[in-house]
């Protein structure tokens, strides 16, 4: 067996065509053309030179979520070197990156991988590429909706939006109730006075003022505090009824 796994051709025997495979990205078809323009765009926007990467994979070794990504950080950088726009914008990696900065801290060539991830995600959103991890995008939109509406986070609102849109209704109900009981999820939102300015910031930031999949659902935020207050009053009244019932016996 010769180099690269192909058997040595005997005289007169036709040469076996080698499968074009990328040595660094598992499963990638190496015949896909290199898109240098996309690579330059990523480098310029992320302010980092992906070309410096020599595939030591220190980033992947330290990445806490590499094993659930389709392309771990080292492969993302390789794909960025080759300008593989479609593979990158459609990857789960850009949505699963935890933003922990471990890769950047350890990269011997100072490739700012988290910045690359941010640029790719923004590009995917701008191009309308469906997120490979849709619930991640829904989470970010649900997180930002109360901030746009009131200037501060409103956990109850965020969770209701996330669950309504992701249809992931039943996870975490137990821990959610426990946190409500401990007063860790306030019923009422807090509103900043300079709300006009905060909304202006969203409107003036690329990607911040755009349409998101929450659409009309954000209106729920306006009615949620009153609804939650009524629900809390009902629960309290029922508990009071039970206590009085016990005391009366």
């Amino acid at each position: 067996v010769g180099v690269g796994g192909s058997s040595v051709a005997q005289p007169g025997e036709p040469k076996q065509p080698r499968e074009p495979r990328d040595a660094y990205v598992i499963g990638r078809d190496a015949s896909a053309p290199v898109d240098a323009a996309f690579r330059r765009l990523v480098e310029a926007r992320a302010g980092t030179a992906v070309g410096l990467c020599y595939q030591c994979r220190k980033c992947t070794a330290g990445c806490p979520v590499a094993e659930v990504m389709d392309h771990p950080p080292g492969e993302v950088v390789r794909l960025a070197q080759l300008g593989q726009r479609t593979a990158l914008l459609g990857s789960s990696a850009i949505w699963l990156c935890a933003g922990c900065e471990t890769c950047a801290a350890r990269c011997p060539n100072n490739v700012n991988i988290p910045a690359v991830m941010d640029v790719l995600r923004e590009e995917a959103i701008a191009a309308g590429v469906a997120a490979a991890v849709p619930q991640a995008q829904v989470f970010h939109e649900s997180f930002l909706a109360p901030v746009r509406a009131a200037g501060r986070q409103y956990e109850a609102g965020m969770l209701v939006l996330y669950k309504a849109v992701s249809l992931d209704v039943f996870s975490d109900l137990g821990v959610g109730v426990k946190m409500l009981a401990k007063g860790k999820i306030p019923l009422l939102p807090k509103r900043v006075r300079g709300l006009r300015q905060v909304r202006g910031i969203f409107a003036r930031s690329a990607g911040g003022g755009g349409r998101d999949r929450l659409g009309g659902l954000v209106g729920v935020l306006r009615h949620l505090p009153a609804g939650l207050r009524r629900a809390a009053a009902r629960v309290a009244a029922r508990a009071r009824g039970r206590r009085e019932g016990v005391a009366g016996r």
Partner: protein
Amino acid sequence: MSASGCGPVSYYPGCSQESTAVEYDRSARAVCAALGIELRELHDWNCCGASSAHAVSHVLALALPARNLALAQAEGYGTLVAPCAACYNRLRRADAVLRERDSADAAAVEAAVGEGFRYTAPVQVKALVEVIGRDAGPAAVAARVRRELAGLRVVCYYGCLLTRPRQVTGYDDMENPVLLDQVMRACGAEALDWSYKTECCGGGLSVVRSDAVRRLVGEILDMAVEAGADAVVTACPMCLANLEMRRTAAAVGGAGVGGGGAGLPVFYFTELMALAFGLPGVGGWLRRHLVDPVPALRRRGISV
């Protein structure tokens, strides 16, 4: 003149301090008051955008914290203190970008903040643990201790955003930070060496991929048990919520911890400081935790 030697400072609580981490906020204020650090809550502060803003928009992720820098600049105390590691990180990033006066990024962020904002008198953005552990210093902390936490073995968990990336935080040692350890030692606790100080707990993915996050939290707690810790100490509300919520019973089943399945508790460093300072209110804060930390203290003869 305060113990920090810098007079009053602007305080940016952040959203968690009013919801999941009220106990961090209250204990932070109490401890700072005891040390003579004057916290003035930043008037009309807004959410920093956390991980979600930078997930979707570069400018939004900088302009949301920048509005708070604008408010702090106007208040004129010169220093802005954030207890939450994520807020601290986002504020530091915006500050770093805005200090590059000639950059296109700085101009874009100033324009997005609007209302004629110019970052002409930059503020020092500091993490609360820096103000306590470096500006006030371990000696000032030790001097305020009324009841040493002798015998309490803790591992200090820094997570990601307090130290990384270096260009943003200016932290000296990203793989082995020691600031929290020094504060805990000043309180009389034993701060153990361990290898998971700066491993990520996956906080930002906690809702979306709780399966993957459970594994990360399990590894961190396992390592804390292996190091022989009674408790984990942190300075991040996201880390604490995640370490409490995303644990499985098996992850804390190691010998010597949480007998009866109570589990390895996680403290905000300011809660343990308040306990060592003999300040009132600690019991109420500890009752807000999802994992009851009181039994671990009792086992070391520390009453609350």
